């Protein structure tokens, strides 16, 4: 059986790490002059809980270890977050983050499988990660390995038909080792989701597709870990944790302005953002 998660969270360490990762995302996207900092900031605690909350089994110096748990960043525009956490986890040096979106850099604008260790799937065209994750589950069964696959989905991404194709198939194959986390920050590229597309009722949709569904506070490590632990205990159906988050979390003027979705902060805004992230009080 897969090991269960540790029940003790070192909250001060995780919070400090969240601060550093937010700054990494800020620095990398500001330097690049483009990218999706606000979409990355909303999922910082989710990805950190997986990598540093004792959830994922991984060996950063042996990234292809067959027994590893998989993490697939299906919302590929949160690439700066993925790269920052992988660097903190020891997959590669943090200095690589300085080359985000540059020519000849393996740190591409969106993740490309095979270019950086720890990147499990090529994503960026939304809707694709859950299917790849299900493939890893079926492969694990054939290889007699019981690793788990964690897929981070965007909320707007759930408008894509492929997500529901994969959802139907994962339930059909009783993929108990498949755990999706939905970064429900309530905004997509052009506006509030409630205005742009009738995504709700999400809990009922996933449940009707045969999934085990829970909700979490996506910025609360303890809440996330509790839900992940519950999901790990489910063996005969896939699980999804709908994590309620705030887009741009950590920088007040970004939280209030969804037009930051696909753009970096300019140097002046970045200086203000750094100030806020450094003095985080939430």
């Amino acid at each position, binding site marked *: 059986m897969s090991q269960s998660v540790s029940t003790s969270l070192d909250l001060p360490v995780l919070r400090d790490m969240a601060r550093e990762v937010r700054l990494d995302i800020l620095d990398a996207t500001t330097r690049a002059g483009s990218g999706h900092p606000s979409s990355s900031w909303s999922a910082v605690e989710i990805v950190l809980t997986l990598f540093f909350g004792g959830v994922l089994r991984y060996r950063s110096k042996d990234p292809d270890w*067959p027994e590893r748990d998989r993490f697939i960043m299906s919302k590929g525009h949160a690439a700066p977050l993925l790269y920052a956490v992988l660097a903190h986890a020891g997959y590669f040096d943090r200095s690589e983050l300085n080359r985000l979106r540059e020519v000849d850099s393996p740190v591409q604008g969106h993740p*490309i*499988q*095979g270019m950086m260790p720890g990147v*499990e*799937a*090529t*994503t*960026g*065209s939304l*809707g*694709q*990660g*859950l*299917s*790849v*994750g*299900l*493939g*890893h*589950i*079926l*492969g*694990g069964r*054939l*290889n007699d390995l019981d690793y788990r696959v964690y897929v981070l989905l965007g909320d707007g991404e759930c408008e894509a*038909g*492929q997500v529901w*194709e*994969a959802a*139907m*198939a994962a339930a*059909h194959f009783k993929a108990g080792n498949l755990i999706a986390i939905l970064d429900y920050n309530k905004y997509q590229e052009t506006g509030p989701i409630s205005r742009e597309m009738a995504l709700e009722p999400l809990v009922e949709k996933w449940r009707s597709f045969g999934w085990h569904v829970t909700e979490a506070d996506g910025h609360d490590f303890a809440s996330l870990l509790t839900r992940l632990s519950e999901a790990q205990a489910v063996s005969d159906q896939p699980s999804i944790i709908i994590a309620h988050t705030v887009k741009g979390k950590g920088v007040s003027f970004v939280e209030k302005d969804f037009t930051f979705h696909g753009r970096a902060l300019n140097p002046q805004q970045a200086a203000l953002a750094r100030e806020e992230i450094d003095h985080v009080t939430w």
Partner: protein
Amino acid sequence: MSLGNEAGLKAYKAPLRNVFGEALLAVATDNPRVVVLDGDLGNSTKAETVRNTFPERFFNLGIAESNLVGVGAGLAACGFIPWITSFSSFLLCNAYDQIRLAIAMSNINAKVLGSHGGITLGKDGPTQMGIEDFALVGGLPTFVMLVPSDPASMHAAVRAATEYIGPVWLRSSRVSLPEIYPMNACPFEIGKANTVRQGDDLTIIACGIMVAAALDAAALLAREGIGARVVDMHTLRPMDIDAIAAAARETGAIVTAEEHLLTGGMGSNIARIVAMHHPVPMRFVGLADTYTDSGDPDDLLRKYGLTAADIAQAAREAYATKRRLDNGRAG
């Protein structure tokens, strides 16, 4: 179908898709890493051969091609060799983006079977036909593209695709094709075209079902004293530049023949290579910018100009142009 009659080719009873099913079962038997993914058409593509023998390595993902491709990519990442199978039109047109990111851009070891290529699936009509597959897979730069022309080359192509490490797309057909190669004796090296008939006056470069038609055309031309070389371009990428350049240099005129749209097809890529290496007169047999109708395959091939007679006529024109140019130079 009367394909191969003029050339004296031996008919083969089983349709090419059935041969694919046999070939797939053969590689699955030899290699336990081979897995098969089906978009609920295994009884048509004949991928079901593996379902019947190795059910644990066969996955029907239903009528959901996008998910089908993504799941295949995940299995490839686990060290398996997935054969992702469906009609060419459904796979490429429904799941092009997934094939692009999860297979082509990720450069993973997955195989894609596009069954029912071309117009010879016949009576089901243009919604099911794959007349744009060369162009679409052409837009996926890491993919090897294979188009077998007969039963022996289908067996060889499936084996070569499975052994090759990287993305491969393979076209299959609904119809029966005559034997061009002896069974188990088809020379098949990815990227190396096969010259299946010698000739010095011009070269017909064909793929898939059009190879047999090209051999028929060569037999018709021989009666007129025109010696046509016939090249089976079974690999559309990487394309055999040497064979094309040699054909241009040695025979001085080229006709291409494909069961595909001319726009974005094999012929246009060959023309680019000919223009760069040794420009000679060319003619192109294929589908003009049109969708076809439902109908008997032979009727469709006749209506849309894909018969041996059409190839022979194109060859006469190319040859006449070559002669005119040669005479001009001589004069």
